[in-house]
């Protein structure tokens, strides 16, 4: 029971009654002020905060790093990328850090460089692992360079993927993105949507109309 709900203690009979009452109040308030009922109230408040946070998350207050709803504008990453090298760029937005890597065997991969744990920068480390790996120095998070899957450390989700293409002149372009763990075809279908109907048909996406409804329902 909190002190404020107590009836004021009756002043003593002595002339300095007010002072005695004051001292009693002071003494009571020196005791622990947080009772178990107060804890229950605090727990209820925390619970309400979590509920509000959950609604906020579902409504989209968090930024989904390296994601775009529709087809992002293709962007030139670099003029040339040698095996074992990496280059940092921004894609799809100017705020979305990304990383393009050419694996030693020549495969070209691109990922969002925002760690899925606490958003540190992910680095390409050729010297680590069998054929290099994506490494987050903040908490030793490690991602597989070929798939973006988490192979060690605290990150909860794979890195969002970025689809790269190589032009005949060797320049590398970023063209599309996929969310964490999203299959490539699903991601491309979602972004192509109804803006590129012939490409969606080529990919064998579910019917154009359905794809558009899907997109509205999922986002």
């Amino acid at each position, binding site marked *: 029971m909190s002190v404020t709900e107590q009836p004021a203690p009756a002043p003593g009979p002595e002339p300095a009654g007010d002072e005695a009452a004051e001292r009693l109040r*002071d*003494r009571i308030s020196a005791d622990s002020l947080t009772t178990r009922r107060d804890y229950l109230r605090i727990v209820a408040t925390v619970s309400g905060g979590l509920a509000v946070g959950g609604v906020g998350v579902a409504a989209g207050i968090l930024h989904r790093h390296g994601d775009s709803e529709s087809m992002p504008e293709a962007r030139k990453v670099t003029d040339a990328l040698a095996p074992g090298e990496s280059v940092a760029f921004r894609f799809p937005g100017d705020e979305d850090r990304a990383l393009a890597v050419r694996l030693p065997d020549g495969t070209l991969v691109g990922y969002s460089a925002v760690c899925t744990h606490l958003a540190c920068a992910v680095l390409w480390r050729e010297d680590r692992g069998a054929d290099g790996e994506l490494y987050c120095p903040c908490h030793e998070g490690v991602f597989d360079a070929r798939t973006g899957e988490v192979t060690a450390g605290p990150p909860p989700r794979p890195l969002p993927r970025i689809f790269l293409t190589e032009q005949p002149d060797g320049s590398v372009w970023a063209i599309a993105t996929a969310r964490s763990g999203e299959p490539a075809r699903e991601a491309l279908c979602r972004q192509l949507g109804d803006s590129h109907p012939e490409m969606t048909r080529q990919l064998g996406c579910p019917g154009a109309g359905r794809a558009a409804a899907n997109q509205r329902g999922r986002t």
Partner: protein
Amino acid sequence: MSDQPIPPRPDYRPGSAQPRLNRPVRERYPQIRATSGYGDPRIRHTGPGPGAGTEQEPERSSKLNARLVLALTVVVGQLWALTVAVNEWMEGNTGTAWWGAGFLILSFLVVIGLWLLDPKDR
């Protein structure tokens, strides 16, 4: 002793009835008292003797403890659900994230219910 009526209890007053015998404690460490807890007139029956300083109303106390433990358990579940909701939303499964939000709200209602069982208990 037994034939005499019990005299009315005097009003409780912390410290001495003579103000000059009470140390002035206001100046230093004003929140620390040697008698902390026992200087509180709301504590009705406690010591000296067996059971001094222990719980005086164990039934009520255990009910409150049970409510508190249940509420804390629900909050732990909410923390878990929030991480799940964030993961699902980040992976683009917005529908699943909304289910998570619904779970969080239901859990909150459970906690509120536990509190409303007896909001005045201490």
